[in-house]
């Protein structure tokens, strides 16, 4: 009857919870306590709503020495391509030209244009074609890249790119309104960037 007793006792004493109880209070990151206070004054019977910063892990402060790796978040609307990945360097297609970002880069906000984003990690280089977006480089060697659309470069069909380029050139020639012209121009820009990315 008590065959397993010793085992249970041993387990009970050495047992540690792998995860916290559901009722345990989570360490919460309070961003704006003045908001909660103002809320309590105006609407005392409703709990203040959460704010986005409660759902994200706080970023570390700027270290005194430059770290050896760059932490990259590369996000798209439908997925997080890289999240918190430590790499050596990224090259970002900013509107002002290709921008190489190493650890310790000066804090920058850059707009992206269609082009190649390459992520260098040791000897590996991952290349993506991005359609545009924003890149933030923070002083603490964090880089956030937000793009609307990104595809690994090896998944692009060169024949379709050529075809699209000729199609849009034709469209630009026949365009009559300003809107059509602008649309065709965007098409040409994207396709020629793709073409340059594939050939170059």
């Amino acid at each position: 009857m008590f065959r397993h007793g010793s085992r249970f006792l041993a387990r009970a004493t050495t047992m540690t919870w792998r995860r916290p109880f559901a009722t345990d209070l989570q360490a919460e990151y309070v961003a704006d306590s003045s908001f909660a206070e103002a809320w309590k004054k105006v609407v005392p019977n409703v709990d203040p709503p959460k704010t986005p910063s409660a759902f994200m892990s706080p970023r570390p402060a700027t270290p005194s020495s430059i770290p050896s790796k760059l932490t990259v978040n590369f996000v798209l609307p439908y997925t997080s391509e890289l999240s918190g990945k430590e790499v050596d360097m990224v090259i970002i297609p900013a509107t002002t030209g290709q921008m190489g970002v190493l650890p310790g880069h000066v804090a920058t906000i850059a707009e992206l244009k269609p082009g190649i984003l390459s992520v260098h990690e040791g000897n590996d280089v991952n290349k993506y074609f991005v359609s545009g977006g924003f890149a933030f480089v923070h002083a603490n060697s964090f880089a956030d890249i937000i793009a609307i659309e990104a595809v690994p470069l090896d998944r692009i069909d060169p024949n379709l790119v050529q075809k699209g380029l000729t199609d849009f050139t034709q469209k630009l020639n026949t365009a009559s309104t300003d809107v059509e012209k602008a649309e065709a121009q965007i098409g040409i820009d994207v396709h020629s960037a793709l073409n340059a990315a594939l050939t170059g």
Partner: protein
Amino acid sequence: MAMAALRREGRRFATPLISPNPATVFRSSIIPSEEPVLSGVRCISTQVVRNRMKSVKNIQKITKAMKMVAASKLRAIQTRAENSRGLWQPFTALLGDTPSIDVKKNVIVTISADKGLCGGINSTSVKISRAMHKLNSGPDKENKYVVLGEKAKAQLVRDSKKDIELVMTELQKNPLNYTQRSLVAGVKWVMVSVMADDILKNVEFDALRIVYNKFQSVVSFLPTVSTVLSPEVVEREAESGGKLGDLDLYEIEGAETKGEVLQNLTEFQFSCMMYNAVLENATSEQGARMSAMDSSSRNAGDMLDRLTLTYNRTRQASITTELIEIISGASALEG
């Protein structure tokens, strides 16, 4: 004269049938043991209970089906919402989280569902929106609502019709998407970027406050407020070294002026925030509907059990009465 007499007679006959309170009639038909059974209408009560059992069973079928539908929709949309969670984080890291900012023109973007039967998520977002309105109101301040979804519109129209600037409905009809990325021809996507563009064009604002329910689990949703500032306010705050003082340390590359980049940046921020908010709210809606339908089908089951018990008991009682009548009749004949 004759008519009045007839009416009086009629009333005298009807009194045992029509009780003064119609509710008690209904109740008595379900639980006949509490009230004396009317003579001559012995089987009517079982009939009523049987009908009621049938309708409860049908309701249970419907709620079960709705639960199944919500569960399958939830699974599809939950992964999309979770994948979109990375999208807004860089913006919050850069531009900060400023719910307490004090500006003149506030626009509250209330996100709700188009359909009901999904617990309290719609009224929660309306309640939080009203509170935000109250919190930010004051002399020479303007508060406007932009309402997404039929349910919040119905609730907000009642008391703050004049403050509603823009209403958008039928978000859930087509799958939500950031931009047109339709791989299957004929599938229409609701483009959140276009929707966000509509709002930005039509509404003047200093701060947009997006109110939505963030999905945590099938049974818990967190009302959340995301704040998006207009480019002018961002610039002012950055220069004055207020909450966004760090922004001045950033080098800005791109267009000619800083204002232009900030304009693009805040518009992009708003569309990204909206995208996540709409998806989170849709996920919360499906989750809430699933749990609401689950509990209501369980409720219907309980009710059905109770009704079945009553029905069987009544039937058994009537059978027993009939047997007694037959036996006593037979014994009377014999004796």
